[in-house]
């Protein structure tokens, strides 16, 4: 029944791991061929893979795990999806209804444990409720601000001997759940007036534009106005990064020009963003001269940290459409002279070239050079998943994403171990696409068991490991704030031989140690189109990520290198 309901909901792929409480469901899976199931090697990877699939396709990812440890292993992945507003359905088995509360074998209160990190959750009480619960779960997960929904099902509820008349509901109505549609027209008018009168505007957009499929409209708006645009870590790809109006990423490791423009702006149009602490730095010092126009589908995201002068609650597409319409109809024109002057100032900041890479001596590879090389080899058209740390920031800074849904990373929760399973999810969604996982030797070890899954299902993911033999971002902070005391951030002597390791799993490994061989070896690795290749690149272990925001400062306050600051 459950599988049939999933199929009726349009699901053709689920990620999971069997166990006692879900055996009825697994038996049902065995007897059909409409829903494909991918067996992962750890439940956390199932959630990340479903998450990667959802980010790349826009469709909800579906996960099936057993009760107890199966459910708790899924928690990190659910929290990851929750923080980044990713639509996901997690079906967890539960012990028999009669055993709930008795501390039965593999019993855990999944609805309770997951409560703070789900959009909503259900515990199915009766078999005949399954179709409606599935329908509601998908509706809630995918509409409004998306998010993960847990369906906890006691084993007796999926007992095949309990028959009932199956009917999949056509529609769903929840009296307590409404999806914001169009923004308030009066507010949008007000925002457009302020926007058109701006002398130093910045358009600042985030994951909401990617999730809300607003990229094309955003591009149209930015082009029409001729204003500068910057993306958050989650929003990369919403506006083509190779375009001149794009200032690069903003925030803690954003470009000099993006952060300076924000700080000196008179109008900030924030779309699908949440004024996260990694962007704003000190709230009190944030954009002192700017009027804040904030568009988001979640009313609770507005004025949560930075108070909006013009709040607009609505879907990104509807608000952007209305804005474009109003701008085109408007008698007032953009203050072109002021905007030209503003661009002149921005070009001045740009000349600083804050992402300049200074080559290392002795043929040593800089991590940034690996990302640049990756960009060239993949023609800037790969799906890039990343783990968390320095490599994540380098990828975000140096891989110029021109399309949405190409950059897949755990921005909110910052989950190490996310990248590789997410890349599997992408590869399943797009078998012919290049799915790359940019990782480090720290993060990759958090879900390396999925090498086996990739062999079983022939997923030719490319893993680019920026190996600096340390937990690079931790080490960087220890360098900058803890007098270089590397407390438990290094382990060079105990690192595995990744090449042997991946070969043991039946894949191909390539080690690159010199800059002079980087390009050729990378090209060779990517030429192996139908194989998983692990590219272990030894990089300069002392490199830091710059620019970097100075804690407690304004957005203009940045370290630009080890010796230079604003």
């Amino acid at each position, binding site marked *: 029944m459950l599988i049939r309901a999933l199929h009726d909901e349009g699901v053709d792929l689920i990620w999971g791991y069997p166990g006692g409480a879900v055996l009825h469901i697994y038996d049902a899976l065995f007897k059909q061929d409409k829903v494909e199931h991918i067996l992962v090697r750890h439940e956390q990877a199932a959630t990340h893979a479903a998450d990667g699939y959802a980010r790349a396709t826009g469709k909800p990812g579906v996960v099936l795990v057993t009760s107890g440890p199966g459910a708790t292993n899924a928690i990190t992945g659910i929290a990851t999806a929750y923080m980044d507003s990713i639509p996901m359905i997690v079906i967890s088995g539960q012990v028999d209804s009669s055993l709930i509360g008795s501390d039965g074998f593999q019993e855990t209160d999944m*609805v309770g444990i997951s409560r*703070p990190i789900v959009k909503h*959750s259900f515990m199915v009480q009766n078999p005949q409720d399954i179709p409606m619960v599935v329908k509601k779960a998908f509706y809630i997960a995918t509409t409004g601000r998306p998010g993960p929904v847990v369906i906890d099902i006691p084993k007796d509820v999926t007992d095949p001997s309990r028959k009932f008349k199956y009917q999949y509901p056509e529609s769903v109505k929840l009296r*307590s*759940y409404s999806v914001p549609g169009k923004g308030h027209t009066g507010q949008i008018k007000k925002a457009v007036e302020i926007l058109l009168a701006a002398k130093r505007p910045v358009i600042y957009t985030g994951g909401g534009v990617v999730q809300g499929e607003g990229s094309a409209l955003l591009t149209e708006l930015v082009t029409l106005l001729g204003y500068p645009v910057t993306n958050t870590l989650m929003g990369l790809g919403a506006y083509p990064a190779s375009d001149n109006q794009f200032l690069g990423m903003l925030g803690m490791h954003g470009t000099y020009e993006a952060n300076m423009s924000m700080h000196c702006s008179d109008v900030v149009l924030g779309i699908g963003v949440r004024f996260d602490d990694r962007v704003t730095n000190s709230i009190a010092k944030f954009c002192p001269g700017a009027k804040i126009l904030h568009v988001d589908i*979640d009313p*609770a995201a507005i*004025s949560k940290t930075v108070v909006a002068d013009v709040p607009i609650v609505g879907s990104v597409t509807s608000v952007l459409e209305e804005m474009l319409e109003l701008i085109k109809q408007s008698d007032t024109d953009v203050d072109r002279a002021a905007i030209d002057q503003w661009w002149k100032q921005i070009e001045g900041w740009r000349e600083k070239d804050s992402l300049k890479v200074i080559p290392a001596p002795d043929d040593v590879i800089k991590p940034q050079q690996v990302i640049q090389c990756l960009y060239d080899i993949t023609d800037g058209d790969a799906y890039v998943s990343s783990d968390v740390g320095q490599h994540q920031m380098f990828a975000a800074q140096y891989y110029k994403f021109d399309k949405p849904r190409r950059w897949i990373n755990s921005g909110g929760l910052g989950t190490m171990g996310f990248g590789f399973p997410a890349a599997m999810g992408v590869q399943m969604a797009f078998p012919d696409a290049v799915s790359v996982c940019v990782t480090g030797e720290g993060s990759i070890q958090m879900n390396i068991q999925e090498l086996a899954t990739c062999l079983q299902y022939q997923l030719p993911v490319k893993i680019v490991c920026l190996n600096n033999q340390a937990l690079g971002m931790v080490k960087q902070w220890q360098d900058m704030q803890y007098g270089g005391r590397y407390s438990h951030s290094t382990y060079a002597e105990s690192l595995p031989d990744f090449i042997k390791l991946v070969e043991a799993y039946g894949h191909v490994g390539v080690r690159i140690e010199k800059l002079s061989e980087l390009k050729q070896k990378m090209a060779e690795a990517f030429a192996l189109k139908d194989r998983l290749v692990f590219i272990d690149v030894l990089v300069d272990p002392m490199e830091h990520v710059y620019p970097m925001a100075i804690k407690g400062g304004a957005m203009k306050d940045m370290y630009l290198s080890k010796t230079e600051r604003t």
Partner: protein
Amino acid sequence: MRHIISMLLENEPGALSRVVGLFSQRNYNIESLTVAPTDDHTLSRLTITTMGDDRKIEQITKHLNKLVDVVKLVDLTEGAHIERELMLIKVKATGAQRDEIKRTTDIFRGQVVDVTSTIYSIQLVGTSEKLDGFLAAISGTTILEVARTGVSGISRGEKVLSV
């Protein structure tokens, strides 16, 4: 400032824990909480008193509204409203104090609902302030037990919280 937020909640398992969990998760404070089903048995009415400035209260109401189980919500303190709390209090009532306690109870329009030769159990209904006032007034006596229900309330006049 103190706010009284009252809401209609789906009368379903887990709904209450979602509301309470939201408060602890986001570091909001619950001063008191009452909850019981309404005349429509599919709905519970839940009333929370909490402290915070306008921005915090705005965040609290927005996040509560996002909970799928919360059907409708009102901040009663935004307008004229009636609030009541019930208190049961057991005090030692012996000697000269016995009469004094009875008199104070009458002044506060409370009732002695149970009695022994040494003890009064008193019921008092009113605003939280009034209940506090009563406790202060009998502070000279030995209070053995206090059970307060927390605040419940409705708006004055035509304004109604319903689906």
